[in-house]
């Protein structure tokens, strides 16, 4: 739902790094976004195409990798992956514990940019 402000941040961060490196054009921006985020990849790309017009990032492809939701069990310390929208209950596969900390799944990370 908030693809627009998020996309604007992606563009700004990418342009900042491109300028610092004297780049002519940005070809690809590689992102890692957590599964807990409701961003729709297709819309992020469409907003990006719109916002990046006239900048050196115009026409760049967003390569979005989704990082899984991973919990760490508070009882036994085991880490495990969960398809959060498919399960009704998060249970540790090692000890059956039900109290966990979220380890990953909330990221909004720009990994790198491919440039010429």
């Amino acid at each position, binding site marked *: *739902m*908030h693809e627009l*402000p*998020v996309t604007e*941040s*992606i563009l700004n*961060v*990418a342009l900042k*790094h*491109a300028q610092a*490196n004297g*780049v*002519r054009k940005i*070809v690809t921006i590689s992102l890692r976004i957590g599964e*807990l*985020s*409701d961003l729709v990849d297709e819309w992020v790309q469409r907003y990006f195409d719109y916002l990046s017009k006239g900048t050196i990032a115009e026409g760049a492809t967003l390569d979005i990798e989704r990082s899984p939701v991973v919990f760490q069990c*508070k009882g036994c310390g085991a880490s495990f992956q969960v398809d*959060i*929208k498919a399960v*009704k*209950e*998060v249970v540790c596969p090692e000890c059956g514990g*039900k*109290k*966990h900390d*979220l380890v990953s799944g*909330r*990221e*909004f*990370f*720009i*990994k*790198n*940019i*491919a*440039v*010429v």
Partner: protein
Amino acid sequence: MDEIRLIEVKEDILADNTALAEELRNRFSDAGVFMMNLMSSPGSGKTSIILNTIRALKDEFRIGVIEGDIDSMVDAETVAREGVTAVQLRTGGFCHLDVPMVSQGLAAMDLDTLDFIIIENVGNLVCPAEFDTGATMNAMILSIPEGDDKPLKYPLMFSICDVLLVNKIDYLAHEDFDLEAMRERVFNLNPDITIIETSCKTGEGLDQWTGWLRKRIASIRRNA
């Protein structure tokens, strides 16, 4: 043809906002001001909960309200009638509040004259969960008519809140709402959350809620 090369960025898109939020929290903690970020769907009773909270606490604490809801000026006016400082943000159709927007609201208030600030975030369970506002505490409302499946559909919101008010609890008799299943789903996502059942119509749970809140506001003031 120029060769394509990779530049490592390794930057979190939300990092700016998160850093600003930490700054704001430190400022509040030094000043002894407690800020609550209240989130919910539209129509869950956010304004009613805020009005009841103000009525219960306004004799003990100096209260300010930042209205972020896109609805209209109605909310800020309603709140201002209770005799507290209210600021209406113009979010321009934004789906959430972030630290720069909250800071705009704070700029219109005199922090030295306040103990407790309530942020009424934009009414939805998706976007506000992603953006830290710099609040001392995150609170959310789920009302009975919305259904017991909401923790499954909006897991992030339930996982970032310190307290959940299950509002319109007087509707329980008329709705197919499984309170136990909802509690279990919420505790699975967030074992440390406090759940309080409330109704602004019957008054149920409101003393428990304001009592819980009172302790937290007082403790921030003591430690400042």
